């Protein structure tokens, strides 16, 4: 699997290159700034990009902007964004096009290699992976009491939270001690309550997560 990696700190870039290589990924480009990243994404067209939000030369959200720009050129280009901090604001912007194939994780998650590699694979497959820390903020009682999520049962909310982290039905069932068919029923009910018309299933999962983020 061909990967473009963008990280400005040499140690981290090196470490992540090593980590991904040992798990059988093919690093086609490892860049350290925004313009190079955009260039690599557009010319290499990787299967997945792993991108740090903050990159030179501006040291603002250069990485995020380059990824978003590339996704405007190549729709649904799989991008996993890494950051020292997570913001709902950024998660919304990433999910806004509704195309999926998006990940948004804290850099800390790299420490757990298996989970991190799993996340990269899921994003490459078109899934959506949102950091548990973003999900936790969404679970505040005030938020769930109002808005569109108020109609969901607590169980459905749990399923949606797991879904937002990119888990498959089987994985959700395992985590919540449910049968896979029960998970399917919950998800169908969530789609119904959030008015998501039956279309491409993956796309509906993204839209459900987006609805979740928008409260």
């Amino acid at each position: 699997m061909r990967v473009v990696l963008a990280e400005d700190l040499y140690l981290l870039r090196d470490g992540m290159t090593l980590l991904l290589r040992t798990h059988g990924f093919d690093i086609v480009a490892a860049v350290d700034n925004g313009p190079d990243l955009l260039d690599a994404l557009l010319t290499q067209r990787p299967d997945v990009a792993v991108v740090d939000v903050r990159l030179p030369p501006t040291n603002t959200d250069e990485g995020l902007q380059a990824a978003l720009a590339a996704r405007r050129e190549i729709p649904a280009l799989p991008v996993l964004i890494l950051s020292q901090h997570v913001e709902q604001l950024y998660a919304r912007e990433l999910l806004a096009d509704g195309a999926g194939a998006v990940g948004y994780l804290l850099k800390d998650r790299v420490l757990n290699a298996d989970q991190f590699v799993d996340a990269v694979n899921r994003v490459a497959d078109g899934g959506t992976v949102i950091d548990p820390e973003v999900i936790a903020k969404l679970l505040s009682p005030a938020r769930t009491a109002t808005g569109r999520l108020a109609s969901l049962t607590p169980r459905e909310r749990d399923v949606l939270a797991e879904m937002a982290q990119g888990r498959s039905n089987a994985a959700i069932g395992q985590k919540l001690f449910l049968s896979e068919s029960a998970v399917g029923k919950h998800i169908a009910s969530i789609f119904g309550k959030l008015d998501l018309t039956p279309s491409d299933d993956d796309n509906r999962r993204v839209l459900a997560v987006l609805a979740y983020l928008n409260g």
Partner: protein
Amino acid sequence: MRLDAVRGVASYPVLGALVGPPPATETVRMNTLRSVATAPIRGLVLGALAVPVVAQFVLTLVMWGPAFLLSLILAIPPPIEAGRALMNVWRRLIGALAGVDIEVPYRPPPPRPQPDADGGYTYRDRIYKTDRMPWLFRRIEAWGEDPANGRDLFWTLTYPLVAAPLALIPAALILTGVVAPVLGYPLWTVTVAAPGIAAGPALVRLSGAWSRHYLGPVPPRVQTRKVARKRWVERNGLILVRCAALGGLGLLAVPLLAFSLAAFALGFGLGMVFLIPTAVEHFRWLANLRRGLARDWSGTPIAVPYRPPVEPELRADGRYRVGRQLFKSERMARFDARFSQVWRDPAVGRDLLWLILDPIVGAGAALLPVVMVCYGLWAWTVAAVMALFGFPHDDWYGAVAGNVVAAIPAGLALTAAGIWLARRVLPWHGRWTALLLRPTKATVLSQRVERLTQTRADAIDEQALEIRRIERDLHDGAQARLIAVGLTLGAIERLLDSDPDAARQLVAQARETSAAALAELRDLVRGIHPPVLSERGLGDAVRALALDAGTPVTVTVDLPGRPPAPVESAVYFAVSEVLTNAVKHAGATAIAIDLGHRAGTLRVAVRDDGRGGADPGRGTGLAGIERRLGTFDGTIAVHSPPGGPTEVTLEVPCALSSPKTSTSSATG
């Protein structure tokens, strides 16, 4: 269809059918004849109506007696209701007699009060058991607002004087014509009676039209003219009243000055020095009042210039130091500080000078237009009119240079000039007040220095506290956890060969500890300078805050560039604090944040629908924001009536840097 319609309009029979059958010439002549023949009689009846109308007027006054003389509000409705019924009889009668259509002008009565949830009836600040009194009050209120009442009364009073005589003219002329031959003027029969007969219908109609004007609804033209006239009178009247008030306050300075002079005399003459500070301070309420009025009435804001007295400094030996003087008691030290202020504060001397000059300059200017209007109106115009009726007058009262008639236009001209002048005197008066009552440049500068010293001290304190907090957090948190990770790694090294299972457990533990250290560092960084602020700027950082608030928050941002980083940071933390307060303490369910930059000032307004009652003097949070913003000359204003809504406004003067590049986003 279309063709038919066109033809229909064009052809006469159809058009004729639309406007009704043309009246037969015969009928018209009959109508005219009847109208001419009956006009004198109808006029007579209209004239005779004057008698019951006068009776009604007298009766109304008699019935109003108990209501107004004895304050019996229960006696108010009967005369009005009975009077209205009678007035409607006049309307119909006069309408029929004079051939005019008089509409009933009364506004519909107010609805009967509805009981509250607990069965009582509320009116203003009271709850009543039955709806009797509240309904009475409401009706009286409605009558008071209905212009028809006053017009009815005016009509009752003037009908016998205007409309009735007018209607009587035809009958009177004909009667004269009939009687004239008997008295020996046979020709008058024709010359007097004929116009009486001919003009009869017109005169009767005219009388009816006059009644209709006052008995019918207020014509819209009269309405707008009346409103405009009322506004003009109110506005100019207000200006004159303000001039008079300023003049009065100016004259009030005279006794206050006398008091000051007496205090000086006693203070310096008899050595009663304790009176000296009082002598220069006792009239500050007046000066401050005038500063406020200059702002409200003349549009000239004037800052309060007084410098605070030096704070006595308590020394190690228990004595208080003021300048180079030492005092045993704090009271004496404070008095000395206040006393030396008399010589040190330039505002003291300027205040005194103002106290001396204002009764002459300020009061003189303010009273001039008032005197002009009063003199022109009363001493010339009204007195001259009265002089025409034989009242006495002299050279200055009711006459100009001995000429009574000239006094009327001269009086009106003087009044008009007074009104014209009043409007110009008010702003001038504000400038005069500012001349002596505003702080001197030196005072403004010294106040500024004081404020800067204060805010700098605050900023340094704040910074020191912040650094201490960061140091403690690092020391107790991340640093300690990294040590733990190091220790765990050491243990792993030892166990690797002997007990690989235990080593694996320790690896997991080390990873958890390092993750916790990272989380702590992340929180710490967020507290020092939130990353989203440096990545996206204030607008998006506030949007991110809003998303994390857990309550629906709408954010509008209108920033054409980025404020300086320290301002951004201070405002960000201030908004964060305000938002937390709104969610936690006010129980808000909807919050709106408005960020904008206008006229060199960054302005953030946070409105919530919570329970309000926030007191900026209490909570340490708001005081902290105030100190933090104070470093940048920023301010925080809290408007929070009990029951809400709360509006907090932060303002920081600052310039914006280059136009924003990529911070716009569709979210938020």
